[in-house]
């Protein structure tokens, strides 16, 4: 596979190194000549000291034959434009963007970027896993970004305690499929009676979140989209 990496910072550099080690053809574009020279000393002449946002240089780097373009600069606007140019102008089959501001994820997805990596979101996710929260916890985004894997920690006051999933009003397009109880994960059956302290794992569309919140946590008005 030919992978064009745009942005030769830490992420781009290690990404390129790993890809080379796995036997892929790689080119790295880095606009800062000093940085470009520095990484070229390490990984060789595959480094192109040009701005990957510039259409002309993107063409010269062979983006029209790239299988993947990974835009990993520190600037969201650059990563967006690199991916859009790659996708719509150079017909690159797969585009991947690093997103720093998690709020930009929806826009990027909407504008056709195939895959998003958000370090901010990931770190946030792991911090939230350590803090007991009364809200729904996002574990992962699935599919084209429409589906969320969600964990709900049943705290006192949850309307689901003492009831079974079949008695709950679970929105369409959403499924409760497992429960973590006493450190063990078990499939959640329609008749399983939920207890305080249970962690219910659900998959559902983003729109179902407010309803799920109401059913499993209580107080739907407090539903926070994270």
């Amino acid at each position, binding site marked *: 596979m030919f992978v064009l990496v745009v942005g030769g910072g830490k992420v781009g550099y290690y990404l390129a190194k790993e890809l080379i080690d796995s036997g892929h053809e790689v080119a790295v574009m880095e606009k800062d000549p000093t940085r470009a020279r520095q990484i070229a000393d390490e990984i060789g002449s595959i480094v192109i000291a040009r701005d990957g*946002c*510039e*259409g*002309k240089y993107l*063409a010269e780097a062979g983006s029209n034959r790239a299988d993947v373009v990974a835009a990993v600069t520190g*600037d*969201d*606007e*650059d990563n*967006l*434009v690199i991916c*859009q*140019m790659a996708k*719509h*102008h150079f017909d690159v089959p797969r585009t991947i963007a690093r997103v720093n*501001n998690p*709020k*930009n994820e*929806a*826009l990027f997805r*909407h*504008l*056709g970027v195939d895959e998003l990596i958000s370090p901010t979101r990931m770190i946030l996710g792991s911090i939230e896993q350590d803090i007991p929260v009364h809200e729904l916890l996002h574990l992962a985004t699935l599919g084209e970004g429409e589906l969320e894997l969600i964990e709900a920690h049943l705290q006192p006051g949850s309307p689901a305690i003492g009831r079974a999933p079949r008695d709950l009003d679970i929105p369409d397009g959403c499924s409760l499929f497992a429960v973590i109880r006493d450190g063990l994960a078990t499939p959640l059956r329609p008749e399983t009676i939920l207890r305080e302290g249970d962690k219910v794992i659900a998959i559902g569309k983003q729109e179902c979140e407010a309803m799920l919140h109401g059913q499993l946590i209580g107080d739907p008005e407090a539903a926070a*989209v994270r």
Partner: protein
Amino acid sequence: MKIVIVGCGRVGASAAEAWDAAGHEVVVLDMATSAFERLPSTFKGTAIRGDGTDEDVLRRAGVAGADVLLALTEGDNRNVMSAQLAVEALDVAKVIAKVNDPLRASAYSELGIATLCRTGLMLDAVNEYLGMPKSGLPGMLAPTGQHHGGDHHLETSRTSAPATEAARGAAVEA
């Protein structure tokens, strides 16, 4: 009309001054408050310090539902992103992004964003004066394609209600 200008450089400030004087509701954004010194003391619009590629900032500035957004910063990509946020997430009717890279300028006009390419505009102005043939580079390009959202825009759960107040509070006296 409600017009938002992102980037208060010479062009942005001149446009703001002219449209404000013509009675339009003008909002100017720039990352540096010093840029607002370019606005005349008679400017009656709003000047807000902030990043025009940040959706929250745009919302606080009351960009949602504006008639026009003109993105004129020094960064082609920032302009493209502001314009796309405005059209996809903030329901702005007409957006124009300054894109000085001719290739990007034509690519984005095909993606539904009107673009303004200084490279082509200046070169052709010079060509005309010298009696040379046109450069063939893009100048002001109307959008030819559909923007990505098509008819359905991004759905956002946030509301803009309390935003305007806050933006007013942060407004810089021009």
